[in-house]
């Protein structure tokens, strides 16, 4: 009975996005584990976990190891860890990364649809990482990022117009 009442209450409160409840860290961890049973657990504490999962976004794609570091009250961090990623011939750094050397990839914009702990890592961060890898391999072909998001090469189009 009580749960039924609770559900109804939540529904009415839904429009206030900021009031979405955070998903407990343990629950985030369990959800990842059940979707990716082969994960490697590097670290698991009450307020932090580090796991490595394998992702292959497309049948043509390579398989990559992706490290996810999640700590309560901190932004989530995602790294590609199994290999030094190549750079497209006409570029000098990876696209959409926070840190090129650490291969720390960036998956969402800070404004608007910002990620927060009310969102399930398994249905947001992980598929986005898989998408990142998908577009990264296409980017290797010609240095063009096709995944959308902010324009990495805005000056390039500008120069083209000038010529």
């Amino acid at each position: 009975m009580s749960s039924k009442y609770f559900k109804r209450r939540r529904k009415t409160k839904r429009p206030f996005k900021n009031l979405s409840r955070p998903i407990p860290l343990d629950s985030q961890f369990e959800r990842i584990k059940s979707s990716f049973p082969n994960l490697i657990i590097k670290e698991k504490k009450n307020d932090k976990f580090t796991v490595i999962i394998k992702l292959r976004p497309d049948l043509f794609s390579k398989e990559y190891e992706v490290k996810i570091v999640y700590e309560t009250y901190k932004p989530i961090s995602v790294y590609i860890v199994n290999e030094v990623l190549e750079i497209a011939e006409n570029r000098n750094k990876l696209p959409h990364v926070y840190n090129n050397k650490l291969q720390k990839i960036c998956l969402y914009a800070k404004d608007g649809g910002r990620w927060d702990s009310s969102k399930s890592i398994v249905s947001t961060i992980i598929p986005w990482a898989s998408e990142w890898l998908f577009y990264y391999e296409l980017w290797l072909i010609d240095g063009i990022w096709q995944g959308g998001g902010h324009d990495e090469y805005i000056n390039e189009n500008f120069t083209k117009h000038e010529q």
Partner: protein
Amino acid sequence: MKQLYKNNINNILEELGKELDISKSEHEAAVKSYEAVGKWLSDENSPLNYFNPKILPQGSFMLQTVIKPINEEDDIDIDLVCKLEKKPDSWTQKELKNQIGNRLKENKDYNRMIWEHENGENYEEGGRRCWTLKYSNHAGYHMDILPSFTDDNLSILLEKQFSSGSDLNTDELAIRITDKESDNYPTEKDVNNWLKSNPFGYAKWFYNRAIISSKRLFSLKESIDPVKAYEDEKLPLQRVIQLLKRHRDIMFSNGEFDMEHKPISIIITTLATRAYDKENNIVDAYINIVKNMRSFVEEKVNPDNGKLEKWVSNPVNEEENFADKWAEIMEKQDYFYLWLDKLEEDMGNMLVLEGKGQNESNKFFSNSYGDKVSKKVFSALGENKRLLRESGNLKMETKTGLLGSSGIKVKDHNFFGKVDE
């Protein structure tokens, strides 16, 4: 090989085929051009009007296996038959050729186009069998018009043959053509002693094998309609032939070979069509054809010199060997087998691209079919995936992270990152 991977390859081959094909507007422009030629020849003021002249597509344009040339500046060849009926007894081969040539030259545009092909070299007498009209660089094609006499009832026969099933009595579709290099060119008046050719019989043979019941995309009849609509959806055999022709063009364009001797399209088309076993998708058709093409090259003793020669017989004229030049010019035969070897090797590699990276797959398809078309296909894959996500239809498989149509729904988001590192 896993079915899922096979589907992926099928998708890539299909998209590559579309990129190699001429566009709808190119097709329509060509049709419009040759219809205009037909109209000019049959116009009531034309001296040829009495002979009921008609222009019909033949060759790859009729089989719908045309591909774009590798170099954008190069022309597409469009092969056409110009058929006349009611041959006057007095006409020789030369007379027919010149009658058609003269009428074309009466039109100042066609006159210029005949002149502009090969810088007027064939202006007086035309090529060996054809008159060639060189259209503007912008149009990007030239037309080979083959003068011929046909049975007075050819149109009816074509209609009959191409509206029914497998009856392969193609002899009655044969036409008589002229050959500048034959001894009797200026003298022979009996059409039965002229060179025989059967492009429509060949087309009937081809479509009989190409059409699969489960995917009957258009009626056979439409293939002989001179103004038939552009077909966006091609039959698996048509797509495979386009891919094979492009594979050949790429291989022989690297400067290592004398392009002159590359395998000719009619040999590729004939062998592929013989090997095709009504597979209903491109990848299965491709695998079967590449594996088995080789076995359809026959060997026959040449009665003139007793030597064993390679044969690729014309399916509608067993006497004709499409590979007759191989005996004279060894490179032609060697090149054909070098190409087959490469084709088989590349197919083996194509089937094991799984897990090597999309960029590596792109490299493979670039090497086989061209840089530009391959990039376009992979780029379209990226675009489609992004649209799928934005419309809320992209999903990710658990355990593997595979993006597609099953698993967890992928929420929309924007990639970000520091602009300055």
